[in-house]
């Protein structure tokens, strides 16, 4: 009789997803990018403060213009660390565990698990573990960057007087929170990054059913996101909302304001496609 094997399977999958050398290596690389951003921006902050002391401020220290919320990696768009982190985000999300189904299918490990459990449980556990590993590898460096920057730069509530320094337009997603409860806004963006990091990782899981090349499985999601980012060029001067996750995962608008409907639609689409393909094709496929 088949007992409920989902819980132990999920524990094993989560343990494998987080305790592997690819997860650790990618996390270290992502942390380096995040800390590179923190180092640059803290240095810039102190340089600006010292310049203001030397040249004077005409009585206005512009305190709300220099806040944690436009200096953490999700709020600044000027450092090399920010550039590397947000551009390579889909690639970093996939590296920790996106390849696991392909390897387990190739080595035969999948057969030994499925004969003791069920395909449905195996693929559900695999999906959750891949999602979690992809999400965590993005989420943790962002949190550490936020904490490090918060140690040096005060968390002053942003003011609409200084929108030049914030670029969160009133039409942008959660802008009402940004100018009232900025910490809630940042936490929501951290969760959003976790979710999309997880979704990017599961893209490679879904792609594993169509390709027999490990390199392609990991890199195709990254290229798909880059193509989506490039497709914005055809909307120039026609549609003024952000459609690229590389831009809207950054809490402060880089080019266009963010629409919650686009984020929600893309997120749901990614989930339906990845979860649908994984569970349908995975369960249907004859592995023996």
């Amino acid at each position, binding site marked *: 009789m088949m007992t409920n094997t989902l819980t132990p399977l999920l524990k094993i999958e989560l343990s494998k997803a987080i305790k592997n050398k690819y997860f650790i290596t990618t996390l270290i690389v992502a942390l380096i990018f995040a800390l590179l951003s923190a180092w640059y921006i803290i240095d810039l902050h102190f340089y600006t403060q010292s310049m203001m002391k030397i040249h004077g401020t005409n009585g206005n220290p512009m305190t709300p213009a220099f806040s944690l919320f436009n200096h953490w990696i999700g709020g600044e768009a000027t450092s090399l660390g920010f550039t*590397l982190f947000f551009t390579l985000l889909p690639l970093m999300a996939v590296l920790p565990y996106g390849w696991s189904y392909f390897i387990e299918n190739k080595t035969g490990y999948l057969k030994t698990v499925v004969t003791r459990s069920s395909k449905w449980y195996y693929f559900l556990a695999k999906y959750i573990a891949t999602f979690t590993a992809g999400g965590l590898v993005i989420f943790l460096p962002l949190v550490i960057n936020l904490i490090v920057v918060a140690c040096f730069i005060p968390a002053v509530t942003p003011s609409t007087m200084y929108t030049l320094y914030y670029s969160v337009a009133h039409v942008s997603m959660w802008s009402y929170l940004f100018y009232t409860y900025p910490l809630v806004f940042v936490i929501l963006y951290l969760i959003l990054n976790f979710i999309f990091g997880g979704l990017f990782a599961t893209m490679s899981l879904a792609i594993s059913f169509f390709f027999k090349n490990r*390199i*392609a499985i990991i890199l195709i999601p990254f290229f798909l996101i880059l193509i989506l980012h490039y497709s914005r060029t055809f909307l*120039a001067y026609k549609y003024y909302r952000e459609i690229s996750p590389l831009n809207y995962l950054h809490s402060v608008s880089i080019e266009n304001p963010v629409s919650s409907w686009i984020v929600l639609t893309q997120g749901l689409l990614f989930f339906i496609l990845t979860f649908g393909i994984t569970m349908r094709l995975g369960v249907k496929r004859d592995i023996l």
Partner: protein
Amino acid sequence: MTFYKLLKYDVKNGFRLGLINLLIVALFALAFCIDFYLRKNGAYIFDASTPEGTFIDYLFYIFGGIKEYIPSRTDGFIFPVKWLLLHLFILYSTLYYPYRDLSSLGLNILVRTKGRMAWWLSKSLWNICYVLACYLVIFLTVFGFCLIMQEPISLNITPMFVNDLLEADSPFDIFSTQLVYIILFFPLFISLALNLLQMTFVLFIKPLYSFGVMAVILLASAYLLTPILPGNYAMPIRSEHVVENGVQVTDGVMMVLLLIAASFIAGCDYFRRYDILNDD
């Protein structure tokens, strides 16, 4: 097995495996041409007539890159997606075949060649041929697009596009013929060098991390205008013929030669001692 046979095997198998990627490169080039055509029509919509874009204007738009980024609190860095996509896709296209050939049938071929250096040289030559093929596909696609859209097939750069559409912030009104050669050859040369470097890195680190290192080099090049980052030479917009503080042709040639020589020598040397049975 003679070296000629080995090279023939590599060219045949490598191209067979990467044929679909050449088609994708053509599609990218076509999308970039359409993008330039639409952008050109949009930018000069209020003019009496839309200026024609020459063959080299299209190539300049595709390979151009971005102007120097000067960090500012009010202007964020916007990475050159078109340029990055093209270079990274070519790097991806050459990543799999040499790695795959170090397992199964490829190992038998390696044993029969009786010389690891010949194997490495053959893979390097295949790599060079594949990158050349990618660029040939881009040139032919642009050529075909110009023919269909009745754009002039000429090597005359239209000065107004350089600032209006490529946003180069160039102080020059006319551009030397040297810039034409830079547009035609420098992105290709840097691509060749980076692809060989990536192949060498695969021996030291995993292929995906090797690709990651190349992506970091390209992004850092886009972010910083400096002669020590090779990606700068692959951006004709950053040439000394376009901007006053641009990178120099001689430095670019030195960089390409240095990268190719270092990749080949380090690759040959390390591959002699490389554990080919380590299938992780």
